[in-house]
């Protein structure tokens, strides 16, 4: 490497490191200070907690005065069930749309793609009315139904791209083998769609976990709040109690960060796989 090249490469790294700091700095700051005593939070916000300043008081308060564990389990249930249904129904629909030729298939594909661009939030008034009259308001079922409806169009779009990449010969071979159509989907095609899960997750599952709007509109009791809404309400109530606020924020951040770091390779591969162009 020439000196010039080395200088340029150094410059690139300086820029990237600076931006990386900007990206994680705020998160780090919040998490770090959540483990400190109140006067240390204000006295030396940039210092990591040490033996003298370490404190879990914020976390204690969060556990004591909010239903954070309920929120977690609600979020988990809603996200996982929605994810399973979005993937299952999405893949099934994508398969039928890409594999079978039938009258109206183009129209149906267009109909389904409306939901990619038009946010379902705009129908909130009617959704609330519907859920009320069906006796579903303030239930997790209501959230799941809405999220599945919200996630399906995008997941059908992404999964169609993936299904088209599966060699046509494979499906034809299965047909010659006498495999019934439903089995072709579940035993030949579906297992090959595993790499698509990450892409679908980034575009439809993460927004579900993070959503504030529908929990705000559709759930009213603590027992049905999700983490995002629960923490938001907690923050509003305890706004002056910095220990609790930072702890609550950290508790919302940490699980996501941990899962993200574990899965980041797949998630990023899913994002960059070119299925979304």
């Amino acid at each position, binding site marked *: 490497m020439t000196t010039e090249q080395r200088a340029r490469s150094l410059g690139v790294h300086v820029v990237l490191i600076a931006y990386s700091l900007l990206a994680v700095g705020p998160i780090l700051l919040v998490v770090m200070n959540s483990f400190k005593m109140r006067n240390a939070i204000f006295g030396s916000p940039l210092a990591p907690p040490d033996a003298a300043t370490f404190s879990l008081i914020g976390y204690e308060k969060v556990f004591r005065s909010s239903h954070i564990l309920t929120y977690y389990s609600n979020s988990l249930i809603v996200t996982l069930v929605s994810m399973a249904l979005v993937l299952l129904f999405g893949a099934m629909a994508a398969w039928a749309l890409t594999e*079978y030729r039938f009258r109206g298939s183009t129209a149906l594909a267009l109909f389904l793609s409306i939901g990619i661009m038009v946010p379902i939030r705009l129908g909130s008034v009617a959704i609330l009315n519907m859920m009320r009259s069906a006796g579903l308001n303030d239930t997790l079922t209501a959230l799941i139904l809405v999220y599945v409806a919200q996630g399906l169009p995008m997941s059908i779009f992404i999964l169609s791209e993936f299904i088209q990449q599966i060699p046509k010969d494979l499906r034809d071979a299965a047909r010659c083998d006498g495999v019934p159509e439903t089995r072709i989907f579940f035993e030949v095609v579906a297992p090959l769609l595993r790499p698509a899960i990450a892409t679908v997750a980034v575009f439809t599952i993460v927004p579900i976990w993070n959503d504030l709007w529908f929990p705000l509109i559709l759930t009213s009791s603590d027992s049905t709040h999700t983490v995002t809404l629960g923490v938001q309400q907690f923050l509003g109530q305890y706004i002056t109690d910095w220990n609790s606020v930072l702890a609550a924020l950290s508790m919302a951040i940490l699980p996501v960060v941990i899962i993200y770091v574990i899965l980041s390779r797949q998630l990023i591969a899913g994002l960059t796989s070119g299925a979304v162009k």
Partner: protein
Amino acid sequence: MPESVSNITAQMPRAKLAGLLLFFLGPAVAIYTLFSIYPLVATMALSTYTSDPSGARSFVGLANFKTLLGDALWSKPFWNALGNNLIFFAVHMCVQNPVGIALAGLLSLPGLRLRGFYRTVMFLPTMLSVVIVGFSWNLILSPLWGVAAGALKAVGLGSLFAPWLGLESSALVTLSLISVWQFVGIPMMLIYAALLNIPDELIDAARVDGLGQFRIFFHIKLPLVLPTISLVSVLTFVANFNAFDLIYSVKGALAGPNFATDILGTFFYRTFFGNQLQLGNPTMGSAVATVMFFIILLGLCLYLFFVQRRIRRYAF
């Protein structure tokens, strides 16, 4: 070119095909229609009704829209929200896209070390909830904590600090920048993926032609990822005109100070659910949602007719 659609349906008995389609498409179409399309249509229908205090609804045609756009009590906050929303969007376009492109360009440099690490770290904020991000920045920028002030002082710019989120003049732009900070990962990743798709030989050919990295980026790579950039812009547009969480969690439903950060999403929420100042009004709320729907539709049409058509996709 042979299509990828199978012709297997040609020999299938009709009843069998119908059964298969029902099985595969039924659940998705049913849920989607019932909980996505029907509510949209029903909301639009509801926007042509009004309800009296007893709860009885009566059809009023376009009167709600007349009120919304003509009655100063409604139209002032509406235009204010729309204007703010446009500023919100403009900040995204002017900051998020260039930063995203620049980062993607740096990330895709050949032979870059620690690429995976940078990618992971820089995409992290995008994975977090808007609520959490908004609140964290709220704390950081708060004069009470003094982290931001301290940081500025450390680099000798202490005098520049102001409680940006609290000032009518800067609150909206600050919130927009927080949103940019969070979502820059999406354009970065999509453009990065598009850059990776450019064949190496093309870049090698340019190198042989004597172009430097900088020129290669501007004259070869950038034109080739233009379709992705325009796609990102549309995604940003739809997301921005539908945004709510950030403003609500940092500024509450009243989008203060003095509605300086009010955008369509918060305006819709206030109209629908009410707040300290007014009672919730589902029919007017529906009217606001309908107008938002048409704004988004208008944006999409403009994009399809003026941008999409001019953009050429290149096959490699």
